């Protein structure tokens, strides 16, 4: 089974636009939406949820006021500053380490596990989709990404899928690392802008750090010719293949408003570019 992750460093470069089209084009793939923080794939694929998994990551400290003597030892030991005035825990700041529970001399603190997200196994018109929703302000996005990928692997096996297509999160942190580790190839979507190039370089470094071979796709390629050439030069120097270029166009927005993937919405030149990228990616994956 082959796994492809689509990443970008920068947000808004068109990861989901591409990945959803790949979902439509792939014959035998499981799709995993690993942008758990701002999942969008469901808006295009309209999944029918067949199984829901609760996600519990780290506990949160709770101080019971009837037992608390207000000695302040917990405040002194909390390195995250999560214990507010009146000995109340700020659940957004608490990292669930359990130090306050450990140091409390009167056992006034308990660590409580709450559900902080859900993962879903779904059916779509293009095959299985695994996606998730992280609770607002929850951390451990990386762990939820790992859960989505574990479920996706099971689902792919069950459905005899030969490929897993992963829509990754933006950035270079926790969730991106979880979406990248152990995949066969990363497709990096970039745009010819100063920010796009900056983030491309950072995310390529992340892929290299984890030994994942990458391919690049230049979106909005006609917005700035000299920046486009800069990307090409960078990729040539790095020995990274360019899978294709996609012009600056309103097609993705029009398709999105209709709730369709590009390749369903139109067969214009824009769609042809997307298909070409998919062909190159398939070739690179050796399938």
């Amino acid at each position: 089974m082959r796994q492809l992750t689509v990443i970008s460093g920068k947000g808004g470069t068109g990861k989901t636009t591409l990945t959803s089209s790949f979902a439509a084009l792939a014959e035998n793939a499981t799709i995993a939406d690993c942008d758990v923080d701002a999942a969008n794939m469901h808006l295009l694929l309209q999944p029918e949820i067949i199984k829901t998994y609760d996600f519990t990551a780290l506990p949160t400290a709770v101080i019971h006021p009837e037992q608390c003597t207000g000695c302040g030892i917990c405040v002194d030991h909390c390195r995250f500053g999560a214990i507010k005035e009146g000995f109340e825990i700020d659940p957004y700041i608490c990292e669930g380490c359990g130090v306050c529970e450990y140091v409390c001399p009167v056992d006034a603190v308990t660590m409580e596990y709450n559900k902080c997200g859900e993962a879903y196994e779904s059916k779509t018109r293009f095959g299985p989709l695994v996606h998730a929703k992280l609770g607002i302000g929850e951390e451990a996005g990386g762990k939820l990404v790992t859960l989505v990928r574990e479920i996706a692997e099971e689902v792919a096996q069950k459905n005899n899928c030969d490929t897993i297509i992963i829509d990754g999160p933006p950035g270079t942190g926790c969730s991106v690392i979880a979406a990248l580790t152990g995949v066969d190839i990363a497709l990096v979507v970039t745009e010819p802008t100063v920010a796009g190039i900056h983030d491309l370089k950072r995310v390529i470094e992340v892929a290299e750090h984890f030994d994942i071979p990458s391919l690049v796709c230049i979106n909005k390629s006609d917005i700035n010719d000299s920046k486009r050439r800069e990307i090409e030069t960078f990729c040539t120097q790095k020995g990274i293949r360019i899978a294709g270029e996609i012009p600056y166009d309103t097609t993705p927005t029009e398709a999105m408003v209709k709730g369709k993937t590009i390749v369903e919405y139109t067969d214009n030149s824009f769609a042809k570019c997307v298909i070409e990228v998919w062909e190159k990616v398939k070739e690179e994956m050796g399938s």
Partner: protein
Amino acid sequence: MKITVASGKGGTGKTTVAVNFFLSVPKISLLDCDVEEPNSNLFLHNDLEKVKDVTIPVPVIDEQKCEHCGKCADFCNYNALAALPQKVMVFSDLCHGCGGCSLVCPNDAISETGRSIGDIERSFSGKFHTGLLNIGEAMASPLIKELKTYAGENTVIMDAPPGTACPMITTVEDTDYCILVTEPTPFGLNDLKLAAEVVREMKIPAGVIINRAGVGDGGVEEYCHQTGLPIIMEIPYDRRIAVAYSEGIPFVETMPQWKEKFLQMFETIKEAVR
């Protein structure tokens, strides 16, 4: 006053808004809290100097004293320690630096050392600070927290990371106003709802900037009207803005009439915070 610029989704124009706001309003400063991908300085072109190497404390085991009882590993909720019969292994990438392991160690075998997670840099004027997370580093929040200590006394704009998870929360926490940047599309609306829910729960007053106004559908406007979220600015879908952006040019420089609009928006924000 502390104003955050957040969005839920990436690529909606947070940095564009933060930078142009910063350049339009006198006597304010800017913090780029999107430490995974800090882009503000690509538009400001400041020479930067490093002011701090940010570290988090991670455990060091003294094997002379350690009896491999495993209490440290049992305590660690992040699986950053593994107690083997002959040795305790430390996975410092997973460590959050809570200090619990050294507290529970019965033999006083655990001390701590600093592990670098990234840098804080500033412009020579001191009005701009940015954080840069090390490549391969998962923990953005401690760096953002440290960066926020450089906010200073004046009004400060903070460019937040995308999403609604911990790095975004760390940035938005304790600020006076949150600008939510979105685009008028179904994706934009979906992510705006998530971000709006966060600021509502954190009880931070907020307003919406619709970027690329004119594309998409009317869903975002409808949502704002229904939930009483004020729309404080609309930036049109304009290829000229996209081209200036691609070159790293803030659009208030090519279209100076926009400075006035940012100043007006600042007045609106001050009014809402009061």
